[in-house]
């Protein structure tokens, strides 16, 4: 259900962008394009700790530590299973906003994704 909803929003955003492209190409090129972005979990740190993406972008977290971590949205927008070494978690952001998150095992580890 969730992925379907985000697909609709993504399509909506794409249509809106293509309309804008005809009207004002300059405005569109200033927007970051939806794309896959990666956040590395290394040395008990999310890197980059703050990432700005366009609506519809998929963000992937990859655990490079010898210790398991999780990626849990502070306001419950998303939550990964525990990620062992080299395991990954992805989430597609279908709404604008700021999404703070943390590792529920090591809560000192925090980060945020800003969706524009």
């Amino acid at each position, binding site marked *: 259900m969730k992925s379907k909803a985000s697909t609709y929003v993504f399509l909506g955003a794409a249509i809106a962008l293509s309309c804008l492209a005809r009207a004002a190409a300059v405005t569109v090129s200033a927007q970051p394009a939806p794309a896959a972005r990666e956040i590395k979990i290394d040395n*008990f740190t999310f890197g980059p700790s703050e990432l700005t993406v366009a609506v519809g972008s998929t963000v992937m977290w990859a655990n490079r*530590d010898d*210790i398991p971590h999780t990626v*849990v949205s502070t306001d419950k927008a998303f939550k990964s299973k*525990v990620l*062992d070494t080299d395991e990954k978690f992805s989430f597609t952001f279908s709404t604008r906003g700021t999404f703070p998150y943390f590792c529920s095992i090591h*809560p000192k580890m*925090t980060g945020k994704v800003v969706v524009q």
Partner: protein
Amino acid sequence: MSEHGTNELRLEHHDDGVDRRGFLKCMAWAGTGAFFLMEGGVLKSYSLGRMPRLEAPSAGGLSFVQISDSHMGFNKAANPDVVGTLRAAIDKINALPARPEFMLHTGDISHLSRPEEFDTVDQILKSASPTDVFFVPGEHDVLDDDGRQYLDRYGKGTKGGGWYSFDAKGVHFIGLVNVLNLKAGGLGTLGPEQLAWLQDDVKHLKHSTPIVVFAHIPLWSVYPQWGWGTEDSAQALAALKKFGSVSVLNGHIHQTMQKVEGHVTFHTAASTAFPQPQPGTADSPGPMKVPADRLKQVLGITDVTYLRGTHPLAIVDSSLA
């Protein structure tokens, strides 16, 4: 059982240039557990590496052991044989001059909360001379299910998230849980429900009753920057203010530390699995890897644990900056 046996066989034949016996010997420097003697309300602690120097407790004294952070399932460079090092800790416990009354395991029994990891630890602990083992969970034991599996296995007769108390030879033991519902940016948490239970649990006790509190994450601020502390531990300690002898035993930080604050003595136990760096001495609290060439150097120094044991373990907060 059979799966456990197969796993062990594979580990025995793991060839990384350091033989298994040598590796286990080397791991002794990291410490494998702690032995405690409670006499007259005074708790004395010993590294298991110093056992030959110990005598049996006097009549009326209580002895027990604490092990911690067995991280069953961990298989990275810092220790590819956590089965072997847990076994080595149990061997040391079994070699004690007098059988301890019981054993405490202060959490991170498993590495990833997998059923087979808990099964392996349970199986190994069956060979320990103390038949009773009292557990509290570490954050690695409650992954993905808010501790439901942990409670199914170890939570019989406990309250809430798995907290409980019991008495042994006039000493009141309290097992606390500070690894559930952790908040972003925060430390370990006990929570209001557990704190209310604690107040009630000790209400009827005489001031002279020795108290031993055990929990996974330290109940004192070891190094908050790395999450080594508990948000509301001050409230728990306030509930124990009336008692003349309070000892707090923790794990989580994979190294031994002691600190005395008024009538409260704090101890942390080493891990049976892998060491972690001293507070602030590394970029992160990740497993401390000892390269093979250094491993071999350490192998020649069999008295490392003993020498370390003669240094004062107490630390002060100001040195952690």
